[in-house]
């Protein structure tokens, strides 16, 4: 807009400058970790190995960024710092949607579908169910303990529903399902990598554009409405975005219960602010450092491949407990 002077530089407080430096440092470290992942220990057919590592890196970064961004948004709209989409059972919901699709289409039908179609079907199903479940809770922010309990119950419910539907599927189809729902960091689904990259990039861009709105939403419903936000519309849009990101990440590597929680808590501690202009990039950077770094260490021979997700999840679980027991949540 012409004639509108941006005053950020002129009045930026010393805190702002420090926060900006922290975010830049995090991003620099994340880039360095990615470089280590790509180039350290290259042997044999360099071009081939590099290509392989690049696609692996693309997958890891996607998963890391989407866990960070979806957790930040979810915490802000629920007004609650110890929740994450996975704790609320959203990834279990995704696996359930997948199971339902396999059941509805049959193993062959499912396996024959192009990945883009499968994926869109699952995402659409998941968005619909998560909006139906969570919107009533978010219209008025519910009590935190109620939300956590609901999350655990929903997670359990979806898992057992998945198991039930899986029993109804004949053994061949069940194998298809197992192949689909127990992806790991080792065998990233190539077909989904490109779609996932696009979805994650668009979703992250949308979150970034909404960073000021997220700051206002963090003030609570009444304050946000008083400042002119259409609360229901924004919460619906942001919840759909979270569902989309979680679906993408779960489709790619499977459920990751505590990664998002871990990295957002770390980023917030390091940054000292919940301003979304800082927190979103910081959390994404920390997520890349943790996930890519752990994978690089694993390849350099510190522990086997399984260890990565187990360690990340274990530390994340400890952070969750620490947040739960400390008084300063919420």
């Amino acid at each position, binding site marked *: 807009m012409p004639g509108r002077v941006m005053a950020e530089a002129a009045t930026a*407080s010393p805190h702002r400058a420090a926060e900006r430096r922290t975010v830049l440092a995090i991003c620099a470290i994340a880039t360095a970790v990615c470089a280590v992942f790509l180039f350290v220990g290259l042997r044999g057919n360099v071009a081939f190995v590099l290509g392989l590592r690049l696609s692996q890196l693309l997958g890891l970064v996607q998963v890391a960024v989407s866990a960070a961004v979806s957790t930040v948004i979810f915490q802000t709209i629920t007004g609650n710092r110890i929740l994450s989409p996975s704790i609320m059972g959203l990834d279990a919901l995704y696996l359930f949607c997948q199971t339902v699709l396999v059941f509805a289409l049959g193993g062959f039908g499912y396996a024959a579908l192009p990945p883009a179609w499968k994926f869109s079907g699952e995402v659409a199903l998941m968005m619909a169910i998560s909006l139906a479940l969570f919107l009533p809770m978010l219209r008025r922010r519910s009590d935190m303990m109620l939300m956590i309990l609901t999350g655990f119950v929903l997670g359990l419910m979806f898992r057992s529903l998945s198991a039930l539907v899986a029993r109804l599927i004949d053994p061949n189809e069940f194998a298809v399902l197992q192949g689909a729902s127990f992806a790991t960091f080792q065998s990233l689904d190539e077909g989904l990598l490109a779609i996932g990259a696009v979805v994650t990039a668009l979703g992250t861009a949308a979150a970034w554009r909404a960073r000021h709105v997220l700051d206002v939403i963090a*003030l*609570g419903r009444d304050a946000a409405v008083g400042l002119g936000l259409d609360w229901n519309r924004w919460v619906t849009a942001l919840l759909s975005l979270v569902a989309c990101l979680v679906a993408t990440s779960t489709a790619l590597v499977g459920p990751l219960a505590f990664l998002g929680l871990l990295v957002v808590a770390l980023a917030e501690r390091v940054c000292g602010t919940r301003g979304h202009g800082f927190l979103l990039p910081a959390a994404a950077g920390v997520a890349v450092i943790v996930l890519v770094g752990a994978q690089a260490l694993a390849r350099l021979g510190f522990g086997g491949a399984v260890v990565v997700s187990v360690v990340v999840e274990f530390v994340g679980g400890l952070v969750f407990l620490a947040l739960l027991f400390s008084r300063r949540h919420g």
Partner: protein
Amino acid sequence: MIEIEGVSFSHGRAPILSDISLTIPAGGVTALVGPNGAGKSTLLALMARLLPLQAGSIAIAGRSVAATPGREMARTVAILRQDPGVSSRLRVRELVGFGRFPHSRGRLTAEDERLVDEALERFDLTGLAHRFADTLSGGQRQRAMIAMAYCQGCQTMLLDEPLNNLDMFYARDLMRTLRMVADSQNKTIVVVLHDINHAAAHADRIVALRDGRLVVNDVTARVLTPETLQAIFGYRMEVATVGGLPVVLHHR
């Protein structure tokens, strides 16, 4: 001007407000009084569209609360809720800066920054500008929230019990500031008060509710009689005159 026409509201089956119709003229300070549970906060929340209208209509400065887009409404009327918590970890200056959101959507311009500084100054917060709001005392935080509402720059301000947590110095200071802002900028200010003497000293009008019904809507002097006060609060209190001002001996 605030026009309230036949507004009723209920939570489930419990009626909270019954057929309220009143007009508050533009410019000046109006005190909204009444016993606990009379429906003052509910009426204010309806005016600021924090609750959906169930029956009747409300217009502020000619704009229908139900039909006007949120962003336009947020530039027309600012509200301070009763006991607003600060949910996120924010510095006072950032918090006050949120008042400019309806105007610049979070990207503060030089003009916005100037208005934020002015609001900090006006509510004696300059020294606290870089403190985290959750480390302030209740009264300091209350002042920060009021500064944020003021910073919204609206012609109409609705303040729900702004004197909560304020000591005598800042309570008097706030009422004088509101008076001054109303006079110099011709703002329409509706303020929920419990101490009727603050209303006596600073308000042009008094609107009184009891059990969800309008008891009186009149200029201050005509409300401050033992009979009317008894009709509002349910007990008899003397009204004296000290230094030309009516003083209600409500505590005796």
